[in-house]
């Protein structure tokens, strides 16, 4: 099951040239870009691991793209996303976030039902990959 989180996730994977022009737009707006990765892509897992520190004062996307490639090399079977943070007063939050790397196989999520008091049903999501310990998910040893 293909993970759909962040912008552009219903489109086919962006090429490096497309990622580069998205990043150029972010830099033009004066947002600072950071890279994060995880192997626990639960929708409520908002805090992924940072890959390096956020990149400030950049003018060109080439530098970010190289970091993305470095991250892909280090974590070939992880999810990798790029965040653009807008520091303008009153906004001070992420403006854009999209996935730039994903594992070769995505087993997806299982829906679990729990029957509570008065036959009330509670639902929860469980990632099949997250059943294995961290670092061994998505076919990594």
């Amino acid at each position, binding site marked *: 099951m293909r993970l759909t989180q962040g912008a552009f996730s219903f489109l086919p994977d962006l090429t490096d040239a497309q990622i580069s022009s998205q990043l150029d737009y972010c830099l033009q707006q004066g947002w600072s870009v950071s890279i994060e990765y995880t192997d626990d892509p639960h929708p409520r897992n908002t805090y992924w691991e940072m890959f390096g520190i956020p*990149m400030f*004062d*950049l*003018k*060109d*996307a*080439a*530098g*970010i793209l*190289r*970091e993305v490639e470095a991250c892909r090399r280090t974590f070939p079977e992880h999810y990798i996303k790029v965040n653009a943070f807008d520091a303008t007063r009153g906004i001070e939050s992420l403006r854009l976030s999209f996935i730039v790397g994903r594992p070769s196989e995505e087993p997806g999520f299982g829906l679990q039902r729990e029957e509570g008091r008065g036959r009330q049903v509670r639902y929860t999501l469980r990632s099949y990959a997250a059943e294995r310990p961290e670092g061994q998910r998505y076919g990594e040893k």
Partner: protein
Amino acid sequence: MNQGTQQIQQAPAVALDLDAVFRDSDVAEVLERLDNELIGLAPVKGRIRDICALLLVDTLRRQAGLNTGAPSLHMNFTGNPGTGKTTVAMRMAEILHRLGYVRKGHMIAVTRDDLVGQYIGHTAPKTREVLKRAMGGVLFIDEAYYLYRPENERDYGQEAIEILLQEMENHRDDLVVIFAGYRDRMDRFFGSNPGLSSRIAHHIDFPDYTQTELLAIAHLMLDQMQYALGADAEATLRDYIDKRRHQAHFANARSIRNALDRARLRQASRLFAQRGGAPLTRTDLMTIESTDILASRVFAAADTHCAISDPSVVPRAGTQP
């Protein structure tokens, strides 16, 4: 191969208009400004023209389907203090941007402090960070010879040089690196880092300004500051430049700027001392008189035949041997 020869044969069919490419690039305007605002520096301007011509011809070659390897444009500027190395580097970023060689056309000026770390493992990320910021533009390394300190073998400068080398080679189309420094020290620096020297295509030497050029520079600066010279101030200024040139710590255009700044101070004091008299006119506010320049210590020092450097010309920390 076959395809290549075909394209060469096709080439004359395409209209190749060097004039049109030149007009579209807006480079003419930058070159003109370079000519007007930078006095002297003939070898520098010549080299910049050569680079412009090469890049324009490359644009045409691309249109004609010919092979164009990205030329290596890393540069090395050597020259005495105040000969305009930084100014030219800034112009260079703009020119290269107009010619489409660099994507963004900004210039990041750094010195040793920005590249070299303080402990083991600090240098590489620091240098990479700077390189990342310079991507798509020009990285200007001022006083580059400080990167290499042979007297301390545990110095981290060498590591920064190695990373620079690697990036200059691998990411030629992403950034242009310009080194700058005084002639003799840069020569020694490149002597101990031969790999670096051979990877820099353009070694440009900035000559010292002549007396006439310095005077022209002074006029240009006065114009920009909206001042004018009084009746006999012109001759006094020429005299001043002549004397100042032969004193210690002379820093070409920078010394001229400092001298003019001090003349402005004296002019202001003079006008202030005259208050209560006739109301000042616009011309009064603009005019620097001969006395404003004559009050300089340079004349006093020259008169007593001892070449004391002008104490108000404080050299930038670390720039003077």
